[in-house]
């Protein structure tokens, strides 16, 4: 297995506040990592830096062997377009674009929009009948599925998800996690920020942060512990 992400002595300071303080770890290609920790522990900051949305104060971050901590803004934009897919708790869809266009927007910034391919991505997450719906016309779970379709449309190297089920009810949470499991099975590298231990159980490993420091890296529980979740049914019409 090759190293997909290498983080070394990562520090991020916001004025006097040190959000990340010397964090180091490695993520292997195809791994599902759960990032855990209490509020203010630096989880979101870590995801933002890994996703090229923020830059570290010091330390080193390499993705697929390429150093990203020293990239220019334009290079970071390219990195985000080509190598990262984001899924957020708040979905972050463009409100005036419909589901299809939200997915096509990611294609547009990556290379060129392909309506057929975008529609296919939405069908895979069970939204084949909702292509023309605006985010305001979709439920929370459906919006998150649009966000997942958007995140994977450009075939990124890593998916970064920040509390992806934080705003969802249990039924929708199961659907989203089922999609993540399918992505994982297809070999996608996933880093998922979560407070929920039951979600963390699905991951290969857990990275726990506390006060900006790496508190613990632990292997995920045995596969059989994931029984109830792996048995989740896919959303209607979804297929990965």
């Amino acid at each position: 297995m090759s190293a997909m992400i290498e983080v070394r002595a990562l520090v991020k300071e916001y004025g006097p506040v040190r959000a990340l303080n010397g964090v180091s770890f490695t993520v292997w290609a195809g791994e599902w990592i759960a990032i855990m920790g209490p509020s203010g522990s630096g989880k979101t900051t870590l995801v933002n830096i890994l996703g090229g949305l923020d830059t570290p104060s010091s330390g080193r971050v390499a993705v697929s062997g390429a150093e990203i901590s020293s990239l220019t803004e334009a290079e970071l934009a390219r990195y985000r377009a080509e190598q990262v897919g984001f899924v957020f708790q708040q979905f972050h869809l463009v409100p005036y674009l419909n589901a299809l266009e939200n997915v096509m927007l990611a294609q547009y910034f990556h290379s060129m929009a392909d309506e057929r391919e975008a529609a296919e991505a939405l069908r895979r997450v069970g939204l084949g009948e909702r292509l023309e719906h605006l985010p305001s016309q979709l439920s929370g779970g459906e919006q998150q599925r649009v966000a997942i379709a958007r995140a994977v449309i450009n075939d990124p190297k890593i998916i970064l998800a920040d509390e992806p089920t934080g705003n969802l009810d249990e039924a929708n949470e199961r659907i989203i996690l089922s999609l993540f499991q399918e992505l994982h099975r297809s070999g996608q590298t996933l880093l998922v920020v979560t407070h929920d231990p039951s979600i963390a159980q699905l991951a290969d490993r857990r990275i726990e942060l506390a006060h900006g420091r790496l508190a613990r890296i632990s292997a995920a529980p045995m596969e059989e512990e994931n029984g109830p979740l792996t048995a989740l049914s896919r959303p209607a019409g979804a297929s990965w």
Partner: protein
Amino acid sequence: MFWRIERRLLGASRGRLAVVLLALASGGTIITALVNLELDTSRKLTREFRAFGANVILSAREQPAIRVPTEGVLDASVVARIPSEWEGQRVAAVPFLYLIAQAKPIVSPSQADPSDSVAALSPTMLVVAGTRLAGLPQVAPGWKTVRGLMGSVPQGESVRSAARSPEACLVGTRAAQHLGVIPGDELLLSAGGLQESCAVEATLTAGGPEDDQVLVPLGAAQKLAGLPGRASLVQVSVPGTGAAVDRFLARLSAGLPDVAVRPVRQFTEAEALLYARIHNLLLGIVAVVGLLTVLCVMTAMATLSLERARDVGLMKMLGGPISRILRLFLVEAGTLGLVGGALGTLMGMALSAWVGRRVFGVGAAPRWEIVPFTLSLMVMMAVAGAFPLRLLARVKPAAIFRGEA
């Protein structure tokens, strides 16, 4: 995809964009109207303003322009040698023969009423101008009818003879008052033992010495003066710019070496000064309106940029290069500029036509060559007004998602 997003952007902030569109259309309307008027003023000054009178005078060489008829006259046939058209515009030329004559109303015994006018009882010396009465509107459209016979030129209109009879004459208001005549009366004119009578067709006001004159047909004046086929001067009205008039003068001087050809310089210079002032005033107003329009657009765009900060953060998160994201907003602003400019151009043309009618009495003709200018200007103003949206380039997606911006 670009235009798909553009369409959605335009539909998403309809309220704010309507304000921007309104500002651009209003600015475009005023700018178009003023620029159209500015251009049309030039035309008005060189064409419609000919209403103030002729701008070229032909007279006998080495002689004063207006003298007693026995000297300084020229051959009236010189009119036929003046081009009837110059650079595509019609040229009007009307000969005048001036003489001093005695005038006396012819009063029938039944009409006699000594109380009417003391002056009417004795002849009055005055200037008689012989001319082609029907051609007066072409060289002196500012001369207006005060009172005319039934069926003649209405009051306030440019005076001209209806030429119902070859003996018709027009009398200046002060002369008519002095002689005690009204339209329908007859006048007896005598000079050097010769006599001519004429029927007063109308009284006129010119605001000048013509108010003290009697205007008779050229032939009658020539008979009275004993100068058949002669004229004191020829008034010529040449439409066109100052340069065109200068070219006409050069051509005419060369073609008529025995005639003194002079421009009415005072009028030309006053015209140039007036035009320069109007030009500067209109340009100043256009600049101020343009500035105000940009400020209005900028204010609306500043509010819009706050609303769009999250969208920009989102697009940046998806890897959108800032140049590509800003292009979306600038094209949106440019589109608004184009639409606002088009609306403004149409409304501005209508406004300038209305203002032209109010100011010049003639609607300003649409100058379609200004359309590209106005559209380009409005697009530039819209893009300049979209400056706050360009500040969105500084948006940090992480800060947006943290709720810091």
